[in-house]
């Protein structure tokens, strides 16, 4: 049976209500990102940042751990540990930001390198994708490490599209990808064009945010490379990235858990193996609420410090997804 013939891992029933819900959410997120870019960024990061990291890691564990050989998985985790160490050295001011970023990208390149043999075995386009990504990482590390990191920060928000493409099959997959092209592609491009901002001029409260979040320009560097920060499109680009962040959080927290139910689910063929002993659904939900509350309090009291610590956890989930998605291209469930 070819991978195309594989059944969808979960029954997908997209009703009219679903589309209305998606539409309302997308419009609300886009409006919030354009009108209150800093507030939207800071509030969603504070409440859902850490929560989405946990949920996404659980999804990756459940959905992909069975597809990653134990030895390869361990090596990937070791490299990931090295990346965290590099970031810690940066936090301790033992590494400058430029060399830190270059080293980090180099290590991410190593993550890609580790899965390249698997991609090569599958061959064709998949191997080319891996090679292109590796080339981009090496080029970025050597020529422009900080802008490359910013680029990957924005691109990370698109990973749910890859997860959906991996998890769904047939008509459901086509519909989901079409919807993704719209909400993850067209809408942010529209926001980045600056047209919505100009149409809504006068309604915007650009500076409104969490008390310790600082000014908008101090946060632009999160999603906008320095050479564009003084440009006309800087805030529009930031708004587009903030919108993508909202969507990323929504899909990760709301949709992904439904695509990879845990071992407790009784439906045959829909359960997924997991290496980490995640709590039962109710305990997990309660834990997430606690994480959200603590995270919000931390961001509210000391935004930049909370963001620094959050980032150490976030980078783990962000970088591990690159080799995982590459592997997903090569190895189908049960393959």
């Amino acid at each position, binding site marked *: 049976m070819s991978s195309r013939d594989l059944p969808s891992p979960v029954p997908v029933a997209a009703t009219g209500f679903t589309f209305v819900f998606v539409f309302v959410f997308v419009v609300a997120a886009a409006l919030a990102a354009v009108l209150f870019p800093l507030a939207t960024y800071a509030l969603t990061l504070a409440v859902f940042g850490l929560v989405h990291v946990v949920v996404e890691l659980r999804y990756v564990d459940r959905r992909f751990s069975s597809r990653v050989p134990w030895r390869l998985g361990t090596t990937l985790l070791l490299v990931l540990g090295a990346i965290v160490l590099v970031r810690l050295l940066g*936090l301790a001011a033992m590494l400058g*930001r430029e060399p830190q970023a270059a080293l980090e990208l180099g290590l991410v390149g190593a993550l890609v390198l580790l899965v390249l043999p698997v991609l090569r075995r599958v061959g064709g386009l998949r191997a080319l994708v891996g090679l292109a990504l590796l080339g981009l990482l090496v080029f970025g590390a050597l020529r422009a490490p900080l802008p490359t990191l910013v680029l990957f920060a924005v691109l990370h928000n698109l990973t749910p599209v890859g997860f959906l493409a991996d998890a769904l099959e047939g008509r459901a997959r086509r519909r989901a990808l079409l919807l993704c092209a719209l909400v993850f592609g067209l809408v942010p491009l529209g926001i980045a064009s600056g047209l919505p901002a100009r149409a809504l001029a006068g309604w915007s409260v650009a500076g409104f945010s969490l008390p310790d979040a600082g000014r908008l320009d101090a*946060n632009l560097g999160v999603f906008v490379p320095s050479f564009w920060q003084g*440009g006309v499109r800087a805030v529009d680009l930031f708004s587009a990235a903030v919108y993508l962040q909202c969507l990323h959080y929504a899909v990760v927290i709301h949709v992904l858990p439904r695509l990879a139910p845990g071992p407790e689910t009784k439906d045959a063929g829909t359960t997924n193996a997991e290496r980490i002993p995640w709590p039962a659904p109710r305990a997990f939900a309660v834990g997430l609420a606690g994480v959200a509350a603590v995270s919000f309090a931390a961001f509210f009291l000391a935004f930049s410090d909370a*963001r620094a610590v959050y980032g150490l956890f*976030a980078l783990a989930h962000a970088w591990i997804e690159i080799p995982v998605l590459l592997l997903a291209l090569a190895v189908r469930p049960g393959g």
Partner: protein
Amino acid sequence: MGKSLASVASVLLLWASLGSLSGPAAADITFPLPFFTHEQVHRATVDLGPWKGYTVRFRTVRPGETLGRIAREHLGSFKRWKEIGALNSLDPNAIPSGTEILLPPVNAPLSPGTGPDPKRPDAREWWDFFVLRGPTDGLVRHRPGKPLPTGAADVRLVAVRHDKTAEVLKRVADDPAGAIVALDALAPTAAAWLARSEVLARHVTVKNEDPVHTVERHWRVTALAGGRIELEKTFERRLGRDGREATAPAPPQPPPQPIGSDPVPEHAGPPARWDLVLVFLALLAAIGIAVVHAQRSRRRPSDPTSSTASA
């Protein structure tokens, strides 16, 4: 009351009387800032982008003039009319007289995709910017020696070429309280019109009609959003009476470090944050312990009956 100025320990601003200052129509600039909207800021930014770090000038089109003629007069070449047209989004065939147009810098021809090198000191012409509040007509027609109108809502930006500042200072009218807005408060507004340019703001402290010291603040426009402009002070220096620097420039503060999927902004030199490192390690250890504990409790059969049954 010539000494009224002397009684003011710190006078922030000055007044530039436009027509009387520099003769040619395109010398000093002034334009109203009633309420600057996102749209206005947007346009200003787009228009001035290629001339980052350069001075642009304003010029009023006189009857019968063409862009080519203006280009030849101010930029030295008829061919540079296209630059003026592009900068002002003008149709060269229909320019009403009286239109106020921006002129690109003489020494920085516009070439698509490349801006001039702002590091070339010979190519940079510093202007001082001041924000004035008052009715438009009153400001434009103001003559030195007469009090500035007060209480009106209009705001104007006045730019004075740097080498003319001393001359302008001498022309400061009677106490301009209420008419001239503190530069600190409105420098961002002024900068909106020179978005993507570096703005030099200048505070002159005057005592006994004698400039005691001058504080130069350089601002960089970093963001525009919803009618607001964000500035970053790039450096500040204090000049003594002799015009020499009195204090070392203050280094800019690094912004907070974004992280994880939110990477680091491109500013160097963050302070060491061992406290955060320790917090992270403590959290990591707690998570590790929780995971190990959960794994052990999962392996340990809690109910012998169910264990037997599953076996």
